[in-house]
């Protein structure tokens, strides 16, 4: 069956992130001038406005900041997954990401350690997701 969930909209800025995810790496856009990291990427550093931004690999380790269980499918592709879990993770590097927590347990707490896992959802797209450590 073909994949019918939304796919990332690739652009010149975010291409490196998705290419790396396919290789099992979690990248963050990084400012060589001031060290700020972020995702999604921007055209300049929002801290110091430096233009030349590069990418660094995240350790993939972080903590759970929050989570929700979606009981409504805004896209048909999520209907069979309901309820599915979305999480907010703060990486060791300080960057906060939205992702999916693959664990089904109800025994969660804010601050729980998590690490990245990679889910190859199509031939071209791999989504970084998170699991409890």
């Amino acid at each position, binding site marked *: 069956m073909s994949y019918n*969930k*939304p*796919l*990332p*909209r690739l652009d010149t800025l975010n291409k490196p992130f998705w290419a790396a995810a396919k290789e099992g790496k979690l990248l963050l856009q990084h400012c060589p001038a001031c060290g700020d990291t972020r995702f*999604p990427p921007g055209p300049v550093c*929002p801290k110091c406005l430096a233009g030349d931004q590069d990418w660094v690999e995240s350790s993939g380790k972080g903590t759970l*900041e*929050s*989570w*929700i*269980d*979606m*009981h*409504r499918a*805004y*896209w048909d592709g*999520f209907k069979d*997954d309901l*309820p*599915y879990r*979305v999480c*907010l993770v703060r990486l060791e590097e300080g960057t*906060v990401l*939205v*992702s*999916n927590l693959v664990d089904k347990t109800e025994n969660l*707490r*804010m601050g729980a350690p998590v690490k990245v896992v990679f889910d190859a*959802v199509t031939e071209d*797209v791999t*989504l970084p*997701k998170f699991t409890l450590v």
Partner: protein
Amino acid sequence: MFDLNELKDKIAVIGVGNTKYGNFPEIDDYGLAAHAFRNAVNDCGIDKNQIDGMLVSRIPYYARMGEVLGINPRWTITLPGHGRMSGMGIIEAASAIASGLCNYAVLLYANIGRSRRVNYGGDESPGTWDPWGFTSPGAAHAMAFRRHMEMYGTTTRQLAEVSVAIRYHACLNPDAVMRNPITIEDHESARFITAPLRLLDYCLINDGAVCLILTSKERAKDFKKPPVMISGFGGQDTFSPSSIANFDMDFWHPAISAAGKQAYEMAGVTHKDVNALMCYDNFSPTVLFSLEGLGFCGQGESGSYVEDGALALGGRLPVNTDGGHLSNSYMQGWALNVEAVRQLRGECGARQIPDCEVVQYVQSTPCTRSIIYTRG
């Protein structure tokens, strides 16, 4: 340099109007706005040809709006259809009048989201996190409320107090969309939309339109009803993280505090003087965040603050006496400002707050604004 505080009590709301609220597939945005406009014109008795300023929000084309109403202002501005534009629009119009850009400003908002089946999520509002299924303002508020539960021990039964009190007010408002009373148990047994939030934590989606007419204090004396003064206002935006839309790690606490402080200082009042709070209740947790940000209670203490019907008429702080977005009408803040005016005029019938003198509006959003209204 200008001192914003000099605008205290210089601008008045002289006319307010709204349509019925519901599902109106047979009428468009312009039609709804025109009905609200006519009601506001009749409310204050202004000759519509005197109106020389127009601000529209969620209305497709300002020029067509002017054509429909037969007005040609010398000041016109369009704001997008985001809920947070109501507080921003009123402040913009007040400053336009204060600077002489116009003398009489009409503010128009219309929403046809119910009859046109707007979802507020999915492909309607594409975002960075769609591949992970994270979409909709409700999901963002659920994410924030889960943090509040974890950090402060706030419970969903406490959250229910918000929806229950606001529904109680809707039951006293003959024009409200939802008029059946609800209990905490009803809230707790409603279906999840985005856990931890349930159906009764979500605002309505309905059609309708709202209109306000503003002018200067001096000109305000010439109209049918006593003017309601804009005594103070303040604002603070929080644009990071905009990629996580409608979300803030700190529940917008710094922004609400800043906007509230400006508004209180300008009006010369404190939160203790506020007789009613009109609070942007797109989702029930926003009310908790607003109470904390404005200082009605300490950070993390809103759960216990709202217990035992504290937000209902007769309680310690009546909130959204018209039934708010949760139970009256989803007019994205505009109807709450109209309710503030009607409370201060004493026009609210069964839901009237006795001796109402100070009403505060607040929208705790990426563009946080607060406005304090008093009797003229």
